[in-house]
């Protein structure tokens, strides 16, 4: 397992290099630069040229990237071209809200999706059809539409939740969860549907297997067969879906953060891209990449824990 972890971490180093370089090139190739943002609509060409020089944006791309990489290797991701804030500080401030949103959504997606999928597979009949319908709705309704509906129902009509913003857990655990309930529901609703459908298919497959029939014949309790044995056998397939769902949640968080005005990495990415703030855009991209690499690593470890044979493949 340690070899696998080491291998994954080694692979992630060039991956981060490629991601940061591609991001750098793509942002640099878009017309305009951060000097246009700072100077605003009434700036003259001379002002823009002067500030671009001050920011070092007139240097060749390779030189700019090389300078950034040199500092990045020493743990310095630079400063925002717009605010002057250290990128690591900005990321540190806005990572918490995104992690809270995405991890809670992943939890809801996993628990909700697996429970619905298992119930649907075990009970079948009307319940299965209801769960199927709910799953379809979850997949079909875009998260931003759901977010707007949730705001109008639970903020404006019922006044149960705040309309926007984020409260750190250190400030108030209760307000933290209140500030995240609607965004989490909006973000995870589609994922619950997907995971439920996959879980149901996997469980139906497993429950039809010979070992289940034998266990039933030997009088094993139904709950034990379903939750201890069948679910474990179906878990690898469910986990792979959850891995993909996690990446979907990360990208979906960008929109949800914007709608609920959550100061997370998603809104930071949107803002930095709109302002051509290259160091910040790269910082966010690298952080997202690290999160995906980390999630995949955890997934691999979970696979191995469920089925040790996987390590030999």
């Amino acid at each position, binding site marked *: 397992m340690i070899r696998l972890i080491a291998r994954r971490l080694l692979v992630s180093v060039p991956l981060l290099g490629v991601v940061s370089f591609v991001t750098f090139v793509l942002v640099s190739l*878009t*017309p*305009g*630069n*951060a*000097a*246009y*943002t*700072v*100077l*605003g*609509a*009434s*700036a*003259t*060409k*001379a*002002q*823009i040229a*002067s*500030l671009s020089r*001050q920011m070092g944006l007139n240097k060749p791309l390779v030189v700019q990237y090389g300078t950034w990489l040199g500092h990045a290797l020493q743990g310095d991701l630079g400063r*925002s071209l*717009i*605010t*002057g*804030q250290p990128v690591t500080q*900005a990321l540190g*401030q*806005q990572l918490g809200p995104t992690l809270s949103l995405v991890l809670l959504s992943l939890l809801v997606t996993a628990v909700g999706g697996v429970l619905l999928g298992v119930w649907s597979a075990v009970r079948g009949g009307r319940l299965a059809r209801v769960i199927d319908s709910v799953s379809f709705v979850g997949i079909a309704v875009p998260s931003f539409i759901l977010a*707007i509906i949730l*705001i*109008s129902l639970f*903020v*404006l009509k019922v*006044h*149960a*939740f*705040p*309309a*926007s*913003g984020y*409260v750190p857990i250190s400030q*108030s655990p*209760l*307000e933290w*969860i*209140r500030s995240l*309930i609607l965004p989490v529901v909006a973000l995870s609703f589609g994922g619950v549907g997907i995971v439920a459908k996959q879980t149901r298919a996997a469980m139906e497959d497993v429950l039809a297997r010979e070992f289940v029939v034998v266990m039933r014949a030997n009088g094993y309790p139904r709950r034990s067969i379903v939750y201890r044995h069948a679910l474990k056998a179906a878990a690898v397939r469910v986990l792979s879906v959850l891995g993909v769902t996690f990446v979907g949640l990360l990208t979906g968080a960008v929109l949800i953060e*914007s*709608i609920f*005005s959550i*100061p997370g990495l998603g*809104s*930071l990415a*949107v*803002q930095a891209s*709109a*302002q*051509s703030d290259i160091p910040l855009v790269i910082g966010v991209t690298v952080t997202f990449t690290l999160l995906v690499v980390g999630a995949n690593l955890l997934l691999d470890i979970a696979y191995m824990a469920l089925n040790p044979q996987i390590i030999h493949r």
Partner: protein
Amino acid sequence: MRSPRVIGAMVVCLCAALSPLAGLSAGAPAGAAAKPVLTMALATPPTSLDPLVGSGGVNGVFQAPAYQGLLHLEGNGGSLGPSLAASFKWIGSNNSKFQIVLHPGLKFADGTPLNSAAVKTFAEAFAAGTSPFAYVGQEVQSIATPNDLTDVFTLKAPDLSFPTLLADDETGLGNIVSPQAITEKADLQASSDGAGPYELSQANTVQGSTYTFTPNPNYFDKGAVKYAEVIIRVIADPNTALAAIESGQVQVAYGTPDTARQARSVGVGVASFPGSVDALFITDDLGQLTPALKNVDVRKAINYAIDRKAIAKAITLGTGSPTDQMPIPGSLGYLASLANSYPYNLAKAKRLMAQAGYAHGLTLTITVPSFMSQLANLDQVLTTELAKIGITLQSYSGATFPAFIALENSGKYEGVIFSFPFPKGLPSTVPLLYSPNAVGNPRHEILPDVLPAAQAAEGIGGTKGATAWQAINKTIVSEALEVPIEIEPTIYFYAKSVHGVPQSLTIDPDFMSPSK
């Protein structure tokens, strides 16, 4: 299965989380001062909190709590009043020497005195800084400091609008930064050092998201500090902003035409007033790229081919109004007689095109800021409307602000769709559209009938000055040098608990107070 105790605990937690009362504790800590907290919502974050780096516009709103202006403008197009300066006046009659006298005893947040020397130091640093309004500082030839409280600005050329440029957060020139912060090159993006009623609280600020200001202990008029905290939040989605104000999370928020109706229906206060002019600005009036544009008949045909009333109704949902001229009603240069100069008349437009020798049409290339939805919509409408008289509009979109300005600055296009605020009327158009280096003049055109007359009008005050600007406006409209389309409103939503939401382009929390 789970024990009933666990399920019971979960239910209790859920109920507590759902309880509306639970939220009331946030922002109202026990033992807090009697003064309330003012929370405002804006759509975009500032590009800088440092007036020397980036001032005016949205930056100005975020800088206003910590940097009060030298003068104060009472509402949109309203009169100027004192602020940090106790009095002010022009010296002489040619609008080129302006004097301010500061309140005695002013201090910056760092405790150092705000005196005439501090104003001079700041103004010189401002002119040398990167603020988009640095050119305003560069208009000043010299600053005399005859005593500790008096500054006399001598301008390089007469500028009737100069006092307005010192007001509130209009340009930043009036938002004096402490000389100590300037000398020590303090990080004014992370802190503040002005003489406003509040100062930036670094600990409670998340750049790009939430900006918190607490009272400045050195503010000269402590009675004027009405709030225990001013928080400015960035809420990009207009529907969320409205929901935030409806739910009491914020007290003042920006509004949009499509949320204004809903805001009124739920009893939220709506301040709506003429804001900016949406137009197709022609940047090739001299016809260097497309010779047809040199022909006044072609430019008039474009103006006649546009159904302004229908567009204003559709794009601003009835909150805006059609216009044929750039100054908004009541501002300098506005002429009521010019209203409806170009009524929608397709037949006349086609006739003019034929008369100019372009009966078979022509192609125009323009730039559009596609990230501004109302202007992207306007582009689509104009493309359809102009196609009716044979003009093919090829639009090049800038998806972000830098991308748009880069396209615009290239000088390769004959026009640009944009929305400019002209708060001071026609004089505002000169630095934005007609000066050789203006952003709206990427081809550096010098329009012989406009620029010399505008430069001359700058030095004329009073009724004569107003008449001179009206004459210039008449020229611009009669020669169809631009294609103004609609006046787009600036809309703010406010809770009834707030008094003094200003009727101006920039919203300044310094002058708001809790309702009695």
